[in-house]
C-alpha cells in the first residue's frame, strides 16, 4: 500500500515538474511596456537629503495642507485571503477618477475594498479591510483616494492611509539595523509600545477614547526633526515591511480600535506647517467612522 502510494506520489511530482518550455519573453515585454506608463506608489518616507526635504516642503506648502492618517486592520482572526487584500473596488458612488475636487451630493454608503482612485465627493465613503466593513464621512472637499490604501488631502502625498497589511508590532528601534518589538494583538500593549519609539517624543496618551462606538486607545507622538536615524526610520511593522513617517517634524496620532474581537489601526500625520484646522478636520473624519 505504502509502495503504491509512494509510486503515485512520484508520478504526480514528476508530472508537475515536466518541462512545458515556458517562454516569458513575450509577457516580459508586455509587462515592461505597461511599466513604462505606470507610476510607482510613492514611499512614505522622503529621502532625508536636505534638497529633497526642501522640495517636499515646497510641495507641502503649495498644497497648503497635509494630513496623513493610516488605518490598519489587525485581524485577530485568520488573515484575509490574498485576493481580498488591497486594490480598489468599484462603485457607482465614487467621484470621477481624475480632476480636481468636486462637490457632489452625498453618496449612499456602499461597501468597497477601498474608494476608487480620484477625488472624493463630500459625503460618506465605505471600505472593507480584513473583513471589517467601515465608512467615513468627508465634510469638506479636497480629499482624494489612491484607490488602494490611502486618501489624501488636496492630492498631496499625504492623507488617510488604509494599511494593506496589518501591523504586527512596533519597533523598539526604528533606525537600521532595526530592532522589532514583540508582536501583539492587544491594543493596550501596542499603544504603550508606540510611546517608546526612539526618535519620537510622546505628546499625549495612551488615552481611552471611543471610535465608531467601539473602545480605542489614542496616542499622539511627534517625529523628531533631529532623528537619530540616517536615511530611513521605521515606526511599526507587518509581515512584509514597516510604516515610516512621511517627514521629520510630523505629529502622528494613532487610534487602535477594538472591533468585535479584531483591531482597526488608524494613524494620522500632521505636518508641522499644516494649518491648525486640519487636525480638527482629521479628528472629525475619525469621529465619523461607522463600523457596519
Amino acid at each position, binding site marked *: 500500500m505504502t509502495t503504491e502510494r509512494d509510486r503515485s506520489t512520484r508520478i504526480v511530482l514528476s508530472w508537475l515538474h515536466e518541462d512545458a518550455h515556458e517562454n516569458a519573453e513575450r509577457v516580459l515585454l508586455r509587462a515592461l511596456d505597461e511599466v513604462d506608463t505606470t507610476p510607482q506608489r510613492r*514611499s512614505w518616507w522622503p529621502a532625508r537629503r536636505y534638497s529633497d526635504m526642501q522640495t517636499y516642503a515646497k510641495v507641502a506648502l503649495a498644497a497648503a495642507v497635509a494630513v496623513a492618517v493610516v488605518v490598519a486592520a489587525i485581524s485577530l482572526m485568520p488573515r484575509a*485571503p490574498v485576493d481580498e487584500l488591497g486594490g480598489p473596488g468599484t462603485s457607482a458612488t465614487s467621484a470621477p477618477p481624475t480632476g480636481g475636487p468636486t462637490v457632489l451630493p452625498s453618496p449612499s454608503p456602499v461597501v468597497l475594498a477601498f474608494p476608487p482612485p480620484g477625488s472624493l465627493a463630500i459625503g460618506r465613503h465605505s471600505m472593507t479591510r480584513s473583513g471589517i466593513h467601515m465608512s467615513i464621512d468627508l465634510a469638506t472637499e479636497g480629499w482624494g483616494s489612491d484607490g488602494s490604501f490611502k486618501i489624501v488631502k488636496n492630492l498631496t502625498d499625504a492623507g488617510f492611509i488604509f494599511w494593506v497589511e496589518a501591523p504586527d508590532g512596533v519597533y523598539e528601534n526604528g533606525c537600521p539595523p532595526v530592532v522589532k518589538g514583540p508582536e501583539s494583538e492587544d491594543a493596550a500593549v501596542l499603544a504603550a509600545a508606540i510611546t517608546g519609539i526612539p526618535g519620537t517624543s510622546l505628546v499625549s496618551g495612551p488615552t481611552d477614547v471611543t471610535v465608531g462606538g467601539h473602545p480605542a486607545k489614542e496616542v499622539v507622538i511627534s517625529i523628531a526633526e533631529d532623528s537619530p536615524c540616517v536615511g530611513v526610520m521605521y515606526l511599526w511593522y507587518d509581515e*512584509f515591511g514597516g510604516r515610516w513617517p512621511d517627514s521629520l517634524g510630523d505629529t502622528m496620532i494613532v487610534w487602535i480600535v477594538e472591533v468585535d474581537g479584531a483591531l482597526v489601526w488608524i494613524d494620522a500625520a500632521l505636518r508641522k506647517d499644516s494649518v491648525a484646522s486640519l487636525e480638527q478636520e482629521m479628528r472629525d473624519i475619525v469621529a465619523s467612522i461607522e463600523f457596519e
Partner: protein
Amino acid sequence: MIRAQRGDRAAFGLLAAEIATRFLAVSRRILRDIDLAEDATQQALVAIWRDLPQLRDPARFDAWSYRLLVRACYAEGRRSRTWTPNLRVLAVDEPSVSGGLDDIVYRDQLETAIRRLSVDHRTVLVLHHYEDLTLERVAQILGIPLGTAQSRLHYAMRAMRAALDADDRPAAAEALR
C-alpha cells in the same frame, strides 16, 4: 532592487527578467492555461513595479513577490471561471522524464484531476511540490494558517493520487500498449 525601488525602470527590467520565467512556470501550473498564466505574470510584474517602493526589507522580496503573483493568479482564476468554462489543455512539448505511453494516460488523468481542484488547492500543491517551498513558507505567502496549508496539500495530493488509481487507468494504459 534598490535602484528599481527608486524608480529606475532599466533596473526593474533586469529584475523582472530574472523572475519572469519562474513566475510564468508557476502561474501556468496553477491556472492550467498559458494565456491566463501570461496575464497573471504580467499583472504580477506590474504590481511589483508599482508597489516596490513600499517593500521595506529586500530580504522579503521573494515572499512578497510570490504573494503578488498568487494574487494575480486568483484574479485570473476568477476571470476564467466567468469567461471560459472549459480551459484548454496544458500543452506539453516534451515527453516526461520517465517517457512511455503510460505517461500519456497519466498526464490526461492528472490534468483532469488538477483541473477539478480549486485554485486554492492548486496553489499550495504547486508552491510546495514545484517550487519546493516549505509549507510554513507557503502558509506565510498565502496568509493562511499552517494547518490550512497542510490540509489543502493533503486534499490535493489525495485527489491526484486517486486519479492515478482510477479503475480505468490500467485498462486505458493497456489499450495503448
